[in-house]
């Protein structure tokens, strides 16, 4: 029982981060129908930003969040203005391959600049501290902080999208770009804003991960695929969907661990000795596939 | 004689909106029928339902003696019921002749036969010289011809034409009319038109069906139907309908 709850909370926490990553992706997709393969690389760059900033200034990684968000915003805007907007008028093949190229570019620039070794940091106030609620619900403080900040970031974006004029303008542009233009909404600026938010949420998510996920230039692909699954489950373009789906996907990644545990407990010979844990993320890819077949609109999606 | 097409109590809903409400009518083999009505009356939806694009909530459709309710659109097309589209976006990769060949390929799997059939159809439609042009390079009248030629490639028993005259000038409308007459009279193909151009409807068809807000409100010969107050009200509104019926009472129209 404790193991179950422990898994659930673990899944919940990591799920909030998945949700944050998915948030940026879903906003960009909702806005301009572009699937941003490079999204995971933004996350990766956020990780490196925090790595270097907290190392250089000797501060807690959490304090580097504003810097990370700034980097993310600039990165998003630069990518949009410098490249993505040219993709918008092309065929879909070009859009897919284009952001894929951007992904490769960012990944290999990072590889060239930072080298390929794994790096970890374990610094800051919260490391090695743990919050224990009993019954197996153990929250390592770093992960808990990550989860809390994720939710904060999420709420900030949600407020922006739903309670401000800018947010409404963005929604209008997403629903009908042409019409929005007629209403005097500067759609170019809305697109840029979407990328700024997308970039920032991804880099912040990366920064939150730094204390418990090793930093390499190659984390991008995994996270972007997880983000796709999350966005698909939540519904392309839906902000609350991203949160719910993120948490669900987070829990899904805990399933193989639980499975291994239970099968070792009961001594079952299912899977003939192969552990399911390497398939943590494979399960996520499968989940994407199944979601798209059963309910392509996702839980809350409005864009099909 | 069994009718070519029988529609019984067809009902189609989109959420809360009833697009087609209990529509029934018959079309005899070789007939030229027109479906008219104001915009939003449900004419294209009706075509979509008959052609298998939409699933209907109620009613049945019998084509050539067989029940086609619920069949998918490509199956219905293969049975001999072909429809054209009012507007459609195309990625524009196919030339005119290739377009017509796609139609012909429904009936044959041999490229050479499809090619020669397409040549024949292009000639009959007098667009042979356009054979190698891309569809989006052509003016609207020519595009409409290509669309009809492609539909003819499928050798249909019944053709559903959705506003083929839209956007055409009177001369082009004339040409389309003679084409339709040729298809119907000389080739014996049953034709159902959705049209807004009343001159075309009255000239071509001996029977029209009028839809308004999803319901069939009138059926019969064009002149008499068009003089029905309900029909006038649907198109022009209550005020004109009243005015018109008063004028009719004072001075009945002379027969043409």
């Amino acid at each position, binding site marked *: 029982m404790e193991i179950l709850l422990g898994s659930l909370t673990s899944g919940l926490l990591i799920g909030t981060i998945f949700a944050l990553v998915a948030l940026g992706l879903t906003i960009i997709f909702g806005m301009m129908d572009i699937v941003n393969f490079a999204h995971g690389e933004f996350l990766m760059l956020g990780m490196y930003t925090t790595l270097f900033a907290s190392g250089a200034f000797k501060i807690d990684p959490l304090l580097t969040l504003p810097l990370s968000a700034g980097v993310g915003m600039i990165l998003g805007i630069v990518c949009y203005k410098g490249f993505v907007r040219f993709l918008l008028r092309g065929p879909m093949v070009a859009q897919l391959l284009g952001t894929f190229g951007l992904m490769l570019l960012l990944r290999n620039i990072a590889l060239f600049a930072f080298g390929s070794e794994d790096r970890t940091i374990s610094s800051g106030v919260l490391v090695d501290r743990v919050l224990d609620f009993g019954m197996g619900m153990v929250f390592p403080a770093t992960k808990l902080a990550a989860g809390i900040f994720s939710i904060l970031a999420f709420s900030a974006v949600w407020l922006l999208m739903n309670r401000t004029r800018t947010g409404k303008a963005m929604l209008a542009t997403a629903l009908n770009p042409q019409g929005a233009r007629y209403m005097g909404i500067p759609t170019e600026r809305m697109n840029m804003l979407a990328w700024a938010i997308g970039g920032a949420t991804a880099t912040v998510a990366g920064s939150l991960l730094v204390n418990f996920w090793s930093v390499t230039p190659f984390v991008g692909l995994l996270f972007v695929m997880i983000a796709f699954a999350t966005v*698909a489950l939540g519904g392309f373009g839906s902000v609350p969907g991203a949160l719910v789906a993120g948490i669900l996907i987070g829990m899904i990644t805990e399933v193989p661990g639980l499975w291994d545990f239970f099968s070792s407990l009961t001594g079952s010979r299912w899977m003939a000795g192969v552990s399911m844990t390497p398939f943590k993320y494979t399960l996520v*890819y499968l989940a994407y596939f199944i979601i798209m077949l059963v309910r392509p609109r996702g839980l809350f999606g409005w864009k099909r | 004689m069994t009718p070519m097409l029988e529609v019984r109590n067809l009902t189609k809903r989109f959420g809360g909106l009833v697009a087609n409400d209990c529509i029934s009518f018959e079309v005899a083999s070789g007939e030229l029928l027109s479906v008219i009505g104001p915009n939003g009356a449900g004419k294209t939806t009706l075509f979509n339902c008959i052609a298998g694009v939409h699933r209907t909530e109620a009613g049945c459709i019998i084509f050539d003696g067989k029940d086609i309710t619920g069949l998918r659109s490509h199956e219905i097309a*293969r049975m001999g019921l072909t429809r054209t589209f009012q507007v459609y976006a195309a990625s524009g990769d196919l030339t005119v002749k290739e377009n017509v060949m796609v139609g012909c390929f429904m009936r*044959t799997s041999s490229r050479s036969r499809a090619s020669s059939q397409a040549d024949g159809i292009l000639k009959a439609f007098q667009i042979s010289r356009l054979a190698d042009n891309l569809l989006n390079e052509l003016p609207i009248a020519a595009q409409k011809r290509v669309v009809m030629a492609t539909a003819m490639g499928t050798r249909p028993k019944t053709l559903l034409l959705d506003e083929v005259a839209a956007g055409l000038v009177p001369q082009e409308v004339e040409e389309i009319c003679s084409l339709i007459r040729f298809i119907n009279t000389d080739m014996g193909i049953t034709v159902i038109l959705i049209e807004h151009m009343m001159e075309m409807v009255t000239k071509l068809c001996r029977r029209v069906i009028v839809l308004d807000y999803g319901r069939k409100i009138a059926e019969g010969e064009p002149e008499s139907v068009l003089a029905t107050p309900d029909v006038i009200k649907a198109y022009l509104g209550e005020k004109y309908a009243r005015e018109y019926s008063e004028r009719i009472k004072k001075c009945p129209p002379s027969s043409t």
Partner: protein
Amino acid sequence: MEALKTAFNFSDLPRSELIIAALACLIMAAFPVFPHSSFAMSTMIQFFIFSLYSMGWNTIGGYGGQVDLGQAQFLGIGAYTTSIMLIRWDAPFWVSMPIGVFIAVCWSFIIGYPLFRLRGHYFAIASIATSLVLKDLFEVWKFVGASRGLEIPVTRFKSPDLLHMIFLNDTYYYYLIFCFFLIGILIINGFRRSRLGFQLRAIKDNDEVARSLGINVRWAKIKTYAIAVSFVSAIGSFHACYIKNIEPEDTMSLDISILIALMAMLGGVGSLWGPIIGAAIMIPMKSYLKELLGARSGLVGIDLIIYASVIMLISAFEPRGIWGIVGRARRRVGA
């Protein structure tokens, strides 16, 4: 019979194009005779291999407009089938290759039926997902050598071994893949002139209209998918015999799927020569970049940076590909 005649019929292409193509074939046939480096030879062989991959992709991705970014899984199926059958049972290539194709086609039916309910981005991502799932599977499956992969023991065979497709001298590989290359062109030519080819192009144009003309869209896509995966799987089998050392990261990665699609896009999707032109540009470029830049330890990743930039430039500014440019120029002059 008619299908064969159609395949050999290039009459609808302009004569200038055919003359250039014929000349190019002659040059390629003569290539091994002239002095060349082994690097150039291996690049040429890679060129033929990848242009065949891309030609296969082009049927469903180019003519059909369904951007599939998961073809690498079928490459893997072909490569692994042949490798396993060769290593364990000394199976001849000419037996293991068709078996690989058979498995690949079966798999394509299994995933294709649900997959083709999706379109556009959703389809693309789903294709990536299935490919990654398979790759992850292969990375832990002991039967296929897990992440270490498989190695074909060359010493077991006496080269030149045509039955098992093991040669020490690359020239044999060259002529064999060149023959496959010519056959591939004929098959694609037959495809684009066939009923299925036309159906696919109509579907790409507007699938609602295609349905109204009696085309069973889902089935047409599945059939075409089978053709595409047959190409990729068959040549994957050859690829394994050539490289003799396969592992999931090399043969089934997302990068390969992307490269296959990219070559077709660069050369011009939906055209006969497009994928070949794309391969002719990308493969030498990748090879020489890797040689020149990748090997030096200080410049890790620069070749890939250049590669990525090329992808971005093409996507942003000339997505219709080289053949698209040619086509447009022709229309302006001819019409």
